[in-house]
């Protein structure tokens, strides 16, 4: 019976001219965003891999020089892109994908596409995620607002109820019919997109993580199911299809337009962060006067110099068996680490709190939950960015430590004229970032996952309740 109802719903929908138009537009947008996203991913991934190789080659091909010059020459770390980042670019356009690793400084990320965006792009990019998170729910509403209310107005609901159909079967059939109509858009878009992509590029080279992909697909199905359930429940309860449409459009506007902005403003007002200028000024100040604001680097250096001389049992720095220049450079780094750890730590903690507020905001708008999870699985969320930034910083510190140790232990005789070459450059390993497993992603986004599942359950509940008490006319 459910299958019969689903088939009829599907048949009616695909014969409806309005559905054809709206679905056609959504299909084209989805296909275009998928193909453009995949091409963009392919191009960027190739560029990043090439740049990472070049940067390594340049690092190794440095001439013989004082190793500290090499530390200043620095290197770049590029954030790897997952295949799914072609679907959801997340916060990537705003936080950047590369960071310059050099001595003395923990730099901020570069290559932020949003910086190069034109005024026209201020409304954001059209990505597959936008189509799936915003436009697909609108399509669901447009095809299902009259599912019950329309039938009641047309009089067909009386006919159906008079046949002795279980209302739950009717609802399940209608939900399946809507899902089948959505599949009519989603499946061909994905298939055509994959075919197009395979013609344009080598799919084997694409880093496709099937686990992440399946999880993302499953979560989007949950998200769409929420909209189907809510739409059917409202349609069953509303006095007219017009009223059902108004209520559902109100929900869509709140979910897609109001809630994300409100959650963002609320998180910033609850946990305000420093401006970029303020952040950099504070770091500069702390590098001069310490994290506590009362200590200068000179004092620390003087104290450490005495300790080192005492440790080696000498009265003059020149008598040390090691190059004090290397020790001093490392001391300077350690001084900086304390400052960077404090300020970047505070900044990241603040972002985490803001993020958590937005995740909890999903309790009123499921978009916030799926957006968070989608970004997480695409590897374009804040948590991955922060983890990458930490790993890049750890690599920078390792690089600087290797160089400073080389100066300390090999440059005692030459002093400030000490030079070295490929031996020391090779000691610095190339930077590699391991992508995190799905479990790590879900661990960071458990609040969003929980709320999405709750939405699924809560949307199903009212549907069952309204369907049970549905009135034929």
């Amino acid at each position, binding site marked *: 019976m459910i299958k019969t109802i689903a088939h009829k719903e599907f048949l009616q929908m695909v014969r409806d001219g309005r559905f054809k138009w709206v679905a056609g537009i959504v299909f084209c947008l989805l296909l275009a965003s998928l193909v453009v996203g995949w091409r963009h991913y392919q191009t960027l991934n190739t560029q990043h891999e090439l740049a990472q190789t070049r940067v390594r080659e340049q690092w190794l091909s440095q001439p013989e020089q004082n190793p500290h010059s090499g530390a200043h020459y620095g290197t770049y770390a590029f954030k790897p892109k997952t295949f799914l980042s072609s679907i959801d670019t997340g916060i990537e356009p705003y936080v950047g994908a590369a960071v310059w690793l050099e001595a003395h400084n923990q730099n901020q990320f570069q290559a932020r596409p949003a910086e190069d965006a034109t005024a026209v792009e201020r409304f954001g990019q059209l990505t597959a995620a936008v189509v799936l998170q915003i436009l697909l729910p609108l399509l669901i509403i447009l095809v299902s607002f009259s599912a019950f209310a329309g039938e009641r107005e*047309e009089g067909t609901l009386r*006919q159906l109820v*008079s*046949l*002795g159909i*279980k209302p739950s079967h009717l609802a399940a059939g209608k939900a399946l019919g809507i899902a089948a109509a959505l599949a009519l858009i989603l499946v061909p878009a994905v298939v055509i997109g994959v075919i197009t992509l395979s013609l344009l590029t080598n799919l084997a080279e694409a880093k496709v993580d099937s686990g992440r992909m399946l999880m993302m697909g499953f979560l989007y199905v949950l998200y769409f199911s929420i909209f189907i359930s809510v739409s059917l429940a409202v349609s069953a309860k509303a006095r007219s299809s017009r009223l059902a449409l108004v209520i559902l459009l109100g929900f869509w506007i709140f979910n897609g337009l109001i809630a994300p902005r409100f959650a963002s403003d609320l998180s910033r007002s609850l946990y305000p962060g420093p401006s970029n200028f303020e952040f950099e000024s504070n770091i500069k100040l702390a590098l001069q006067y310490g994290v506590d604001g009362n200590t200068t680097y000179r004092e620390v250096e003087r104290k450490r110099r005495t300790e080192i001389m005492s440790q080696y049992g000498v009265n003059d720095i020149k008598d040390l068996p090691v190059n004090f220049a290397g020790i001093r450079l490392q001391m300077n780094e350690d001084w900086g680490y304390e400052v960077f750890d404090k300020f970047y730590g505070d900044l990241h903690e603040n972002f985490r709190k803001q993020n958590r507020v937005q995740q909890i905001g999903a309790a009123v708008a499921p978009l916030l939950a799926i957006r968070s999870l989608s970004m997480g699985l695409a590897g374009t969320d804040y948590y991955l960015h922060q983890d990458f930034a930490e790993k890049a910083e750890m690599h920078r510190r390792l690089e600087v430590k290797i160089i400073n140790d080389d100066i300390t232990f090999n440059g005692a005789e030459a002093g400030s004229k000490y030079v070295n070459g490929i031996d020391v450059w090779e000691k610095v390993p190339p930077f590699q970032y391991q992508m995190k497993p799905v479990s790590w992603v879900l661990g960071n986004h458990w609040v969003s996952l929980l709320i999405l599942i709750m939405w699924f359950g809560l949307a199903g509940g009212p549907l069952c309740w309204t369907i049970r008490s549905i009135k034929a006319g």
Partner: protein
Amino acid sequence: MLEAINLSKIYDSGPPALDSLNLRVESGEIFCLLGANGAGKTTTINLFLNFVKPSGGSARVKNLDVVQAPLETKKYLAYIPEQVMLYRNLTGLENLEYFSSLAGRRYKYPDLLPFFEQVGLTTNEAHKRISTYSKGMRQKVGIAIALAKKAEVLLLDEPTSGLDPKASNEFSGLLQKLSSEGVAVFMATHDLFRAKETGTRVGIMKHGRLVDTLDTEGLQHTDLERIYLEHMHD
């Protein structure tokens, strides 16, 4: 087959829409319920369909209470309203296939065509979308649904209202054919002529009460009209 026992309905503490109706319609019988607007005809049908709950008494189909066994009783019923509402962008055949499937009768398309023939619709018409159908054709599809469902009881709510005399006559013929096959027909109507021509018994309802019941055999049109008007003027 169809039975009302002290069946009553009161909406929002107003006067009774239906007041202690006692009625029995047997297999092969066509009972036509006459009455002015608001007399309680549609309420009676809604109660048999369990669309509304009774305030008192019981509506029974094949000895089953419609409130206690709503799904079971609906298996035996077919309902044809004043305007049979069908899905406009499906064909007549698709509508018939859909409604009969939901009623638990599965047919292949070719097996459904005879039902169209029985109600006087051609194969060509069966393949046309409902949006192209006239009201009379839609009413015939309603009968086809009842035939396909193999309904034992037919509930009709002013089914010939708005039909031209020829279509109305054809419709009556179909009902008589069904009744001759053992179907119990309960029809609410304003049409005295059609009630007399089609029905085996006629009931007159006023202010929610069944005030008279007449056998149509030997009853003249003029007699029925006179009796009806007398009741209305009381």
